[in-house]
């Protein structure tokens, strides 16, 4: 029996990542951010989300990728968490796609560093590989890094 999942796809550079769509509250284009300079570097700042103050996390830093392009305005992927919404800064946000569990493969062994803990596995997508992100692992990582 095939089971379908729906993943929201976003990209960081050339890589495609997917998060379960029911974890995603909304997506926004680049928002004005207020920096919190004393916070760890991966916390880029705070944004005003319809009257709620939401933390914006630099996902490139979290995943140990190269930094954002200075000219490029990142998009906000707002994710639901226990303590309220958290926004992740990503390059581009794409579609929501259906994937079937049958095509799921475990994480490739050549994933480096922190990615190995955060990627659940992969789904093939046309000509690319979609990396399924484990949101809870990511949130835990953020918590422990924030101290």
């Amino acid at each position: 029996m095939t089971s379908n999942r729906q993943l929201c796809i976003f990209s960081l550079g050339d890589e495609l990542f997917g998060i379960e769509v029911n974890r995603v509250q909304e997506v926004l284009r680049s928002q004005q951010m207020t920096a919190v300079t004393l916070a760890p570097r991966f916390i880029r700042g705070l944004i005003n989300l319809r009257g709620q103050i939401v933390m914006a996390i630099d996902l490139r830093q979290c995943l140990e990728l190269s930094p954002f392009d200075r000219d490029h305005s990142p998009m906000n992927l707002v994710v639901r968490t226990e303590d309220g919404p958290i926004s992740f800064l990503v390059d581009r946000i794409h579609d929501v796609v259906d994937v079937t569990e049958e095509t799921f493969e475990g994480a490739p062994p050549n994933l480096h560093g922190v990615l190995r803990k955060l990627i659940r596995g992969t789904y093939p997508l046309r000509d690319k590989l979609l990396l399924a992100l484990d949101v809870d692992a990511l949130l835990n990582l953020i918590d422990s890094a924030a101290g």
Partner: protein
Amino acid sequence: MDDFIVDYLLEFQEGLAQFENELLELEKAPESATILSSMFRIVHSLKGSSGFLGFQKMAQLAHEGEDLLGRLRDGRLRLSPQLTSGLLAMVDGMRSRLSVIEATRAEDDRDDSDLLTRLRNLQAGVIDEPPLPTVPPKAPIKKKPKAPAESAPALRSQSAAPPPAPSPPARTEAAQAPLPVTEPANVDRGDFESEQAAIGGATIAGATVADTTIRVDVALLDKLMNLVGELVLTRNQLLRSSVVGDEAMQQASTQRLNLITTELQEGMMKTRMQPIRNVWSKLPRVVRDLALACGKQARLVTDGEETELDKTIVEAIKDPLTHIVRNAVDHGIEPPEVRAGRGKPAEGTLRLRAYHEGGMVNIEVSDDGGGIDSARIRRKAIDRGWIGGEQGAAWSDRELFGLIFRPGFSTAESLTMVSGRGVGMDVVKSRVEAIGGSVEVQSRLGEGTTIKLKIPLTLTIINALIVSSGGDRFAIPQGNLIELIRLHGEALGRSLASVHGAAVCRYRGGLLPLLDLNQILKIAPDRAVRDTESLNIVVLQADDQRFGLIVDRIDDAQEIVVRPLARQLKGIACLAGATIMGDGRIALILDVFGLALQLSGEHQRTAATSHHEVQAPVQSGDDRRPLLLLLGTDGSPFAVPLEQVDRLEAFPSSTVEVVGDRPLVQYRGTFLPLIDAADWLAGRASRRGERGSGREETPWQVVIHAVDERRVGLVFDGVLDVFTDRITVAGEPSRRGVLYTAALQGKATEVLDVPTIVQETLRSSVFALEA
């Protein structure tokens, strides 16, 4: 299923609280059928709910309690102290079971047989319960002032002893169950925790599920609904009028919007208001248990329990209030024999009073106990070196009482088990001040003590000063703001200095340590602003520390809504929260206490200006305070420290009236007494009021000095000069009212002690009646 459990927990907690209070009332009126029926019903229904959810052990406990109450209600048993204690033990046992259920959603299999047996014995009228938890006053632990560490372990192990209910280890486990309570980060909880354990579990389980819900008056909700309805209408009007281009309508709608928003804000704040009764409800038990343990008799009387407080504040003051009450019973109220000897009733009275005044909630805790012995405080303070011997004699009672809040203070001759050495008043003060409140102590020896707390109505909306640094805006709570300084050009160079590498600024005769906001926040300063020859400094006070914060720009003062920071950011010491400004941008709220932590060691030495040090008379060694040199009415010069001058005024002589032997003038709505400095020093009555002195027409020039809320004017004939440099002190004070003598402009000039002169005048004159 979980919903059921949440409801059950809520019902149980409320039921137990009510049961406990009714039990204490029953003690005073043992025959009351209504109270007994109510208590029976509570336990009966709790038994039913427990059974329904499968919590068998709880149901069993409730069953025995119900049986006991049934016998009481039917008159087969009479209420006795042992029975009361047994029922309280049952309540404690239930509470601790409740904590476990809350944490694990199931019962643990701990053994209750002791408690059950005790209850059964009580039912049968057999009296065999363990002895009441008293500490015989004859065997106190002798306090060793130099070795506080030794007493702490003794305190903790003993605190496990009282109410012999289900095993203490279980209670501490329960206390460690996750509690969603946030605490002010910079306050030490140590002593409160040992006290909480000693209270017999009465408060530990209470902080959990009940915190996530709130009761709101339906009428209030209706009102809010109406307001929201009007808001929708006004929004529609606004939309329409902007589409259609009707400016008049737009303006009217905007104004209406303003009104509705304010009302909605007030209404919403009201929903979070809880009567202070919720905080006080646990105190009767605390007083009862503690009084028993100390061998004293005390009762609690409340006044104003319906006074409302915001929910955020309720949490913050629970502990400090409990501590103050415990102190009053333990150290304030005397043992019955002593009281009898003083002609007081054997039972001491503790009065709790709450009322709204001036936008704050005032809470007073008074006892009719022995009061605070200021002489002992003075001796202790001198012993500890906090104040010098001579100065010590000059301190007023009020200043001495303030010392109670110093860490490490206690005049208790011996350690008693229950509240330690009176340690914790410093924590009370810092907790209350952390929420923007204040504490004050008044006492009369032999008659009693009153502790007054003043706390703001709500924490979530505060007045703040908005400043800019590095292009971002920041909010500084007004409560910590002393004043704003702008240093310009020449003054800039003159005032700034460096003490062992720490930047300071000359300020009101002293030195103010400086912090640069840009440096602390690691942001690049706004060069356009910084390069000009001026500096903006915000003078702040955190507890004892006064310091200046350099910012790029000072913007505005406004009311802001405090939003908490995300959990991951809460650990940043300098930030207290965030707010959304009118333009939608976010401003971070600075934590003044966190900023104060940034002061280096050297800074801290400069910054620590204890309130009392500032008020104590200045020694003649101080030579750097600016002085105002004046000509006295007798032709001789005298000087006044500039910081003691509020302002200079000149009054036409027609406005000066003479009342009794004193000239005065009406000023700013009150009477301003006038003192002629020269006459005062010479011990003469004032001459200016007399006819024929040749001065009738000339205006009276006056130095105004304020003492608390009252002002007094010091009369002189002319300003000669202002001295800001080092002064050579030429001699000791020559007479009362003189600080020292200095060589100014080549002449020996007396520098006056204005506060003393003013105080003595006020005390001895007609105006003393107003005091």
